[in-house]
């Protein structure tokens, strides 16, 4: 029973990732792609790792996967922030910005 739930979670996570990759491939605006990528990373990864935890069926492996998940949640945003900041700082702009009026 728990295994089946795990398989279902893995499938849902893969579906999240597939939607994300579809939109990353077919959106034409760069900053939209940045935002969508962060979404794919977090949701797909969390769901798939929870599913794998349920499938594995042992506490030690599940805790190790939890440590992996926590580390990834700590470092994942850093890369996205670095990329977005680099693009903005180099002069890649969008037209309407509320901050600049």
């Amino acid at each position: 029973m728990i295994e089946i739930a795990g398989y279902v979670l893995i499938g849902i996570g893969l579906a999240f990732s597939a939607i994300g990759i579809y939109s990353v491939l077919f959106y034409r605006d760069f900053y939209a792609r940045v935002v969508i990528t962060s979404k794919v990373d977090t949701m797909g990864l969390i769901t798939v790792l929870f599913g794998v935890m349920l499938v594995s069926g042992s506490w030690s492996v599940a805790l190790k996967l939890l440590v992996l998940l926590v580390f990834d949640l700590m470092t994942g945003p850093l890369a996205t922030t670095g990329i977005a900041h680099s693009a903005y700082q180099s002069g890649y702009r969008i037209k309407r910005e509320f901050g600049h009026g």
Partner: protein
Amino acid sequence: MVEFLLLGSMLVLALLALYTGPLRIAVIYFSVFSLICSFLYLYYQAPDVAIAEAVMGSGLITLLYLTALKRYRVYSVCYTNTDFPTVSDREIIEGTRKGELVREIEDFCFARELEPQLVFTPQPVSEVLQSGRHDLIIHQTGDKITIIGNRENYVIDELEMLLVLRYQDLKVLVERYGGSSEYGDDYLPEED
């Protein structure tokens, strides 16, 4: 199935890393190559090598390559277009005539041992000029394309010769402004 797909993509990435012009992009290809390589080591049950490859490929190799690349001068090109709220990358990917122009400028930079770095903004030209970050500005309004560069920039004369010869149908205009220290005081193109 899994291994065939990954081996094939490794081949493609290795050849791309060999044949790309901008070397920073080749560094990225190589990084992804080492990612997939590490996963295949795991798949073939050699986890020792996989850990070593993961640590090396994810950080140390990148630093060494980037330090080596520092010898190249980065030549930043800015593509502005005030007509659209967001600049789509359609001009660059698909084989339009304007895309060819941008590609031509990139190839031109490679021949002079400069690393071109493309940036798209929808800002007006005066703001781009005031920021002072860019060496060359390609400005498009409607059909007209203006290329703006510094007067002290020795590359721009050769570029004008090249563009006048090959791109007569695109209404290309080359403008200059003077003084390397003060941007935009001499010259501001008229907005329309």
